[in-house]
């Protein structure tokens, strides 16, 4: 991870590897345990949908805004979904203000692919004037604290926010598009959940903390929908995976996604 400018503490690496090889984590968790997950929805009033998710101390806020505009050139008869991630400088002492760096772009794209591949929205229904005006659904991910596993935190925030989103309805009048004043819940068809694992030594561990991400050799994110289908996979890091490890990872991801899916509705509805 780019936090700490790529410097890996040798002492930390040695200790984490030692503890993991004995089947535990630095904070006492099991290898396949998530930290405590908190989900709150409806936290922002000016957004059409919003959610705040904390996994351990990682903290991400997602805001959904719905507007109208031109469709993508290659899909003129489909609504648009755009995910954007901001690694704010308050999240970690090494995060600098400025345009998105490759880590935040990767995060936005992985979350985006998870939602898109799962086909969570019926894009064909989100059009107003084919080829000219369609609904634009923005999901903005705001990272407020980094303690590892921003992907799962962000993906959960995104889907929780979308599920509670209420969109303004526009109508077409004389070739122009204008707000009708009515609102309708955004129809979310699927519930993809991302599960991130890292490999340390020979062990595959789930929901890495910042320290574990610092010393890992490989990171794997698998997004699974409610039917158990894999929607997205992202692997990063310098090490390789065996077929057995991949199978194991899929097994873990399916199991954990099902468990975490239960949290999408949120614990304290605002």
């Amino acid at each position: 991870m780019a936090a700490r400018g790529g410097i890996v503490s040798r002492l930390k690496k040695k200790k984490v590897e030692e503890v993991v090889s004995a089947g535990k984590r630095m904070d006492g968790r099991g290898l396949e345990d998530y930290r405590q997950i908190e989900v709150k929805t409806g936290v922002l009033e000016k957004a059409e949908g919003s959610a705040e998710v904390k996994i351990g101390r990682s903290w991400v806020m997602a805001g959904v805004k719905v507007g109208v505009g031109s469709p993508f050139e290659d899909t003129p008869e489909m609504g648009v979904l755009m995910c954007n991630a901001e690694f704010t400088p308050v999240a970690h002492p090494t995060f600098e203000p400025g345009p998105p760096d490759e880590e935040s772009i990767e995060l936005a794209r992985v979350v985006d692919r998870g939602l898109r591949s799962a086909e969570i929205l019926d894009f064909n229904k989100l059009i107003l004037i084919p080829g000219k005006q369609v609904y634009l659904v923005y999901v903005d991910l705001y990272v407020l604290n980094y303690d590892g596993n921003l992907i799962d935190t962000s993906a959960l925030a995104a889907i929780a926010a979308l599920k509670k989103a209420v969109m303004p309805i526009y109508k077409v009048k004389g070739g122009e598009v204008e707000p009708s004043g009515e609102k309708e819940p955004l129809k979310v068809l699927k519930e993809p959940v991302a599960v991130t694992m890292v490999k340390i030594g020979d062990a595959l561990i789930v929901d890495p903390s910042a320290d574990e991400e610092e010393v890992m050799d490989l990171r794997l994110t698998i997004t699974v929908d409610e039917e158990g289908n894999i929607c997205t996979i992202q692997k990063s890091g310098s090490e390789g995976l065996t077929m057995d490890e991949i199978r194991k990872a899929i097994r873990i991801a399916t199991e954990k996604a099902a468990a975490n899916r239960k949290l999408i509705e949120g614990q304290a509805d605002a």
Partner: protein
Amino acid sequence: MSRRKVKNQSKRYDGREPKELRPIRIESGVLPNADGSAYIEMGRNKIVVGVFGPREMHPKRLAMPNTATLRCRYHMAPFSVDPRRSPAPSRRDNEISMVMRYALEPAIFLERYPRSAIDVYAEILEADGGTRTASINAATVALVDAGIPMRDLVSSCAAGKIDDKIILDLGDYEDKEGQADVPVAYMPKLGKVTLLQMDGVLPPDEFEQCVSLAIEGCNQIYQVQLEALKKKYGVVAEEVKE
């Protein structure tokens, strides 16, 4: 909430009295990775501020030999306003960042940390008028939370005029539709104004009224900041007694 003109009534667009502040809530120490932090809700404004430092300044050639450099950044989340705005900083963001720095500098013992940087990052999660004053209020609490030595707290509030009435703590509607907006930042114990701006047109006596009223608002907000700083320690003391 109806937005009708309040010309012949004493209540404002949101039902407040002319000199009434919006509800305020401040919590300190909300960001685990920052040296100091605070979260503020002022009306519908929701802002989180993180402070880092004093720490090494990069690039080193810009570091000042006799004093720390205070760097403030005011940044709005795309979902903080309607319609959505781009995450890229605007000219207004840059101006407010500078204004925050002017408001906070006089209160900080910058000369104790030569060549270093103190970074104040304000992230606006939801905006509803008066975000610059709310950011300054939260930034003060975050700076104290970070253990940075200060001469005094800095409290901030805006007064203004709408429909020929002088009012305190302008909301979004009043910001946009009003006749004048006077944001003020103030060091309450030292009695000094560190930020003074104005938007609009006012005769001198009304301008003075606005500044006085804003300072009254600052004094009220000071109490909320004190609460926030002391609360963190009070809560734990209670738990220990149990």
